[in-house]
């Protein structure tokens, strides 16, 4: 809401035209044209063939697996990300600076390494993995839980880092007033803090969802990659590329892009509606 103000001021001035042209050109070259190539590739044999490619049982299964694991991860991420951001902003405790820095680390770790690490931690031959498997009958690695864990690790910073600045800016006077009037902490959180954080939580979560849908490096290590069982869309795309099936690769990629686009458009719509109501 604050963010749109400077934009509105810029609108009237002309010297920024060149700047805008540069950024449009950049987006065009770096993002739009490559996407257009994928689009053209996926539809080169017509819409019917495109549809056949994405509804092939093996492709459809891979897409569905990707979507539900990403969705589950997003829900967990939203809750835990909100919690983490809250703790990091509102509480003082020893080691806070270090913890704060650790949150960003997943972004710097090659996702392949993330996968290897998870196998070492939860793999069927490891103490923890063995315990979960034998005592609780729960297989983590080479099964969907492993995919969810990998996605969580990789996208964890997205939610925390979108909530943190909003929380920092939040005026605490309302909370103090509520506390003075006798509101309990949970009520304050539910009625005052959460409404302000709902949007950043939501948009951060969607960002993590969009990131997760395309994840490859970690997933290929932990998933097991068995078609119809544990093969995600990105791994299926690799298989299609490797076996000369560019059409299938592009078609499934288009589905992933389209899903991300719809998700982002929905977020933007919600955001603008909120702006209107205030």
């Amino acid at each position, binding site marked *: 809401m604050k963010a749109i103000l400077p934009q509105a001021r810029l609108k009237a001035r002309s*010297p*920024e035209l*060149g*700047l805008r*042209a*540069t950024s449009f*050109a*950049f987006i065009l*070259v770096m993002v739009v044209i490559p996407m257009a190539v994928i689009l053209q590739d996926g539809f080169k044999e017509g819409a019917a063939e495109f549809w056949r490619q994405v509804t*092939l*049982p*093996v492709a459809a*299964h891979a897409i569905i697996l990707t979507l539900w694991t990403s969705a589950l991860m997003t829900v967990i991420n939203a809750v835990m990300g909100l919690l983490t951001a809250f703790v990091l902003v509102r509480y003082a405790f020893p080691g806070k600076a270090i913890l704060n820095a650790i949150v960003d680390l997943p972004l710097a770790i090659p996702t392949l390494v993330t996968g290897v690490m998870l*196998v070492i931690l939860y*793999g*069927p*031959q490891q103490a923890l993995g063995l315990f979960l498997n034998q005592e609780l009958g729960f297989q983590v690695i*080479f099964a969907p839980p492993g995919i969810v864990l990998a996605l969580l690790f990789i996208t964890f910073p997205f939610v925390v880092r979108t909530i943190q600045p909003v929380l920092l800016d939040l005026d605490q006077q309302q909370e103090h007033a509520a506390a003075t009037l006798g509101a309990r902490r949970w009520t304050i959180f539910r009625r005052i803090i959460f409404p302000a954080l709902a949007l950043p939580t939501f948009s951060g979560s969607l960002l993590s969802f969009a990131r997760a849908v395309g994840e490859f490096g970690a997933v*290929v290590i932990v998933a*097991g*990659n*068995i*078609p*119809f*069982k544990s*093969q995600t869309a990105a791994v299926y795309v*690799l*298989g*299609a590329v*490797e*076996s*000369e099936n560019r059409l299938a690769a592009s078609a499934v990629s288009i589905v992933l892009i389209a899903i991300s686009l719809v998700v982002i458009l929905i977020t933007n719509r919600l955001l603008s509606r909120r702006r209107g109501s205030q």
Partner: protein
Amino acid sequence: MNKRFAALALIALSLALAACGQSQPDDSDSTGGTSADEVNLVLAAYTTPREAFAEIIPLFQASWLAETGQTVTFEESYQGSGAQSRAVVEGFEADIVALSLEADVIRIQEAGLLTHDWKAVGADGIMSTSIVAFAVRAGNPLGIADWDDLAAEGVEVLTPNPATSGGAMWNVLALYGAALRGHVDGVPEGDPQAAFEFLKAVLGNVLVMDDSARDSITNYEQGIGAVAITYENEVLVGQQAGTDYELVIPTSTILIQNPVAVVDAYVDEHGTREAAEAFVEFLFTPAAQEVFSRFGLRSIDPQVAAATADQYPPVADLFTIDFFGGWPQARENIFGESGVFNRAIQEVQGQ
């Protein structure tokens, strides 16, 4: 101020793009090439023979220098066979390709880059061979002796994904072929339906399908799975490196044949044909074959093979890709969209 910044940014961007566009031709100028006393060869290979090439190349360099007075330098690239083959088709200007299966050479032929009869060179253009075999845990605790043991309840099997790995294709062909040929208990000879059911039973035991044969064996070394279907040479090299898993050779299996060829379009462009052809021929000499045999590969040279026979026991029923009518047919019938493999995996997992 902003205008100037924008203009600078635009210029920077267009320069960067121009540089990207130009980098490829520049590369090709610097790679291939020849002069009176020096010639540079670009070798594009799959990953298995990397260590063997590290020994063979110096041998060839010495022999070529003695013979012609010319120094040969090599630029070597190693990656998965399929990826390597596609890279060559898409403009990676390799003078020589050494790949894991013929289908990957055929792709380069179909792109019009390889025009000579590569099978007329050396031993039908096949520089090394191996067989599909099993790696089992030390002491073979499950008593795995042949294909039918892989279908037993609860045996965790590793094999890579045929969509991404040439090695996996060999594995599936070995398994399905052994069943079709009547060498699997309970599967009558020449009964495609029974062989298909057997394939399903083994696929049902597969725990992980890795991208490549190498990833698969790496996972196995980390303690995952009870049996890995793999190449004999992977197990032998692993044992040389000190791992404790054991090799089991099934009664019936497929002979893995690794082709090598000169890429006509690129050697002619670089003017390196003479040295490239000499290198390929050198790979078939006993000196080079002896190196391959030390790295776990079965030699195609009869004398070297005889000398290393105790290391490479004979297989009761050894068949080749010809049993499936050659690679193009195998790709279509076994690995095509509605091929045997895809139908089997769908029936196993889709229930």
